[in-house]
């Protein structure tokens, strides 16, 4: 709105005539020279920047202990093997070559196993990196992580084509529909199969101790199978990390299952049900847990957050 009488004098627009002694009238005072001015910058990005959680102060004592023990065992073994190979060469050349071949073969297998463990463990970090990129809206990093993840997926799983030049929301929706949804279905199928086995074993097993053992073994195998669907091949360290992640995500998955689970447990663990179904009630609860575990593992391995 420009009221009548708008005027600009000496770089100022004053529309209210000041009266003596009164407060000055509103006005606009243009900067000297009237050169184009840059837009204001309040440093907003820095002021509101995500506060990073306090980082860990290096390795934990347990990790240092483990690493030291590993260095000692591997290093001293290598030195010992070197000395032994040198001693064998001193006895006879053929004996030295043979010992060297044995040592190289043995240590090669050990280092191959360590390498596989490390790869399996580090591959799980992809999930964290991709989810972090998604959370902060970093399109470039997310696209790179998604493409790397797709390349690792087992053959036969549908893949989304070129994700470049696609808005992030659209790319995520496509990955969700084309790849993650079928994986979730496969994971659910694995969960149902494991549930049947857990049900059968728990119902016929003679002791509760054996129940727990079978449940733990089948549970770990299930988690690894679901991880493989997502393109991860975790070794021992990877599996431990995965189990930790599954435990953390369990509460999230329970969001949709808590009511059903409580009902199943309530009904099947009741005295009447126990009387009627006997051990089958506990077996049904174990089976239900296996299905829940499959969903939790799927949740933990998803490269994109749900919803």
């Amino acid at each position, binding site marked *: *709105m*420009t*009221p009548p*009488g*708008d005027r600009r004098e000496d770089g100022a627009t004053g*529309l*209210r*005539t*000041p*009266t003596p002694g*009164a*407060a*000055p*009238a*509103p*006005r*606009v*005072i*243009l*900067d000297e020279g*009237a*050169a*184009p*001015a*840059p*837009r*204001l*910058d*309040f440093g*907003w*990005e820095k*002021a*509101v*920047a*995500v*506060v990073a959680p306090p980082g860990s102060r290096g390795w934990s004592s347990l990790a240092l202990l483990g690493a030291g023990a590993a260095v000692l065992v591997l290093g001293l073994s290598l030195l010992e093997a070197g000395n032994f190979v040198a001693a064998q060469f001193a006895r006879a050349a053929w004996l030295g070559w043979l010992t060297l071949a044995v040592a190289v073969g043995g240590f090669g297998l050990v280092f191959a196993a360590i390498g596989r463990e490390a790869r399996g463990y580090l591959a799980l970090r992809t999930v964290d990196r991709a989810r972090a990129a998604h*959370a*902060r*809206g970093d399109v470039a990093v997310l696209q790179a992580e998604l493409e790397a993840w797709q390349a690792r997926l087992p053959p036969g799983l549908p893949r989304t084509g070129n994700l470049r030049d696609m808005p992030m929301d659209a790319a995520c929706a496509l990955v969700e529909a084309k790849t993650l949804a079928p994986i979730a279905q496969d994971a659910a199928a694995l969960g149902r199969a494991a549930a049947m086995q857990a049900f059968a074993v728990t119902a016929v097993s003679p002791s509760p101790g054996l129940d727990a053992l079978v449940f733990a073994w089948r549970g770990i195998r299930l988690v690894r199978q679901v991880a493989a669907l997502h393109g991860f091949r975790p070794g021992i360290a990877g599996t431990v990390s995965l189990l930790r992640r599954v435990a953390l995500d369990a*509460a*999230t998955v*329970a*969001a*949709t299952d*808590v*009511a059903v689970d409580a009902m199943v447990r309530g009904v099947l663990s009741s005295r009447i049900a126990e009387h009627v179904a006997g051990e089958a009630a506990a077996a049904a609860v174990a089976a239900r847990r296996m299905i829940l575990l499959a969903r939790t593992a799927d949740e933990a391995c998803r490269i994109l*957050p749900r*919803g």
Partner: protein
Amino acid sequence: MDPLSLLRVVLDTTEDAARALIGRERIRLAVTGLSRAGKTVFLTSLIANLLAAGRGARTLPALSDAAGGRIRRVFVVPADTETVPRFDPDAHLGALAADPPRWPERTEDFSTLSLAIDVERRTSLGGLLPERRVTLDLIDYPGEWLLDLPMLRQGHAAWSAETLARLRRGTRAAAAADFLAFIDSLPPEAPAEDVLAKRGFTLYRDALRACRDTHGLRFLQPGRFLNPGPRGEAPLLWFFPLPDSVRGGLADLCARRYAAYLDDQRANFLDPFFSRFHRQVVLVDVLGALHAGQEAFTDTAEALAAVAAIISGANWLERLLGAAPSRVAFAATKADHVPTRARDSLAALVEHITLGARGRAEASGATVSCHAVAAIRCTEDAVARLEGQAVAAVRGVLLQEGVGATIYPGEVPMKPPEPAFWDAGLFSMPEFRPPRLDRHGASGMPHLGLDALLAWLVADLL
């Protein structure tokens, strides 16, 4: 309340209770305000800052603190309705961040958006239990249409008498001189001729436009005369206020179209969007009204009171069933147009200008609060030397010229000013360029007081 509405309210209340039980609450936040109050920018800023807060940025510290730091994620979810266009915060943000920047155009149609806010539960075992998901429903619409709501309780005759009485007073009379001359010249038995109806509509519409654009007035009805929306100026709009003396076919035609217009607005505007909401924020460009003169100032207050009578006025049954907002915030927008020390005065002034509206809301059982906010902060505090004295001012970059300027917005009284205040004349606040913004909205956008407003409005529901 008719039985059908009652059934709908009961069903909605049941749905709300069921959602609360499973931790999937839905909050309908009505962002209301007269035209040019800044609804679109407010919604854009609210969405951008909430999304950024969901990513961990401290864009809304007061809301975050009020919620106990339990907000985990915020993301856009598909709205319930698929027939209404989606509010596009990215496009608005992109326009504000562009070089040269553009402020959103006048809103000409509905748009809607829903945000899902995942929050950790309040209990001590909150970390172990599944998170709650609170969905915030938002709509944007032409502010002019809001003033159709008071018409819903009036017939054509009553509306005509009230409108003509207002039109013959003050600056309106000069702006509507042609229209008033036209209706005064109509014979008592004017026939139901479309030509006459259209002529009267055109003159009345032009008068309303002049009142809005030249005199800064806001109590202008019907809203679709000023902002016809996507369907344009259909013959449905060809009616206008008529004096009692005109009783012929033309009066019947206008009354019929008036009723049809209201039915259309009720079906497309009031019932789908304003029949039920949980919280309400009323945006008021109180500074603009102050600068536009005494008539614009009182006119804005009357318009707000009339709208509040419909929106916030709930009967005991509606209150019992939760169909009325339990918190209503009145916010003076564009608070960055005054220096920091004057913002309290701005909040106090909005308290006075919304006296009638607040009374209605409080009578409906709602808790009321007044705020001064700037959805996007475009200025910084400065000091100007005027007539030998240093005064607090603001400094920004002018939108059109792109040059820096210091603006002294004048004294902001804490209550409606004395008559002498208005003698001085009018002032037109220039438009500012928005500050430097990230067009992807990763860090939201700078604001003033938006977090405190949201904390008061919705933090108790998180």
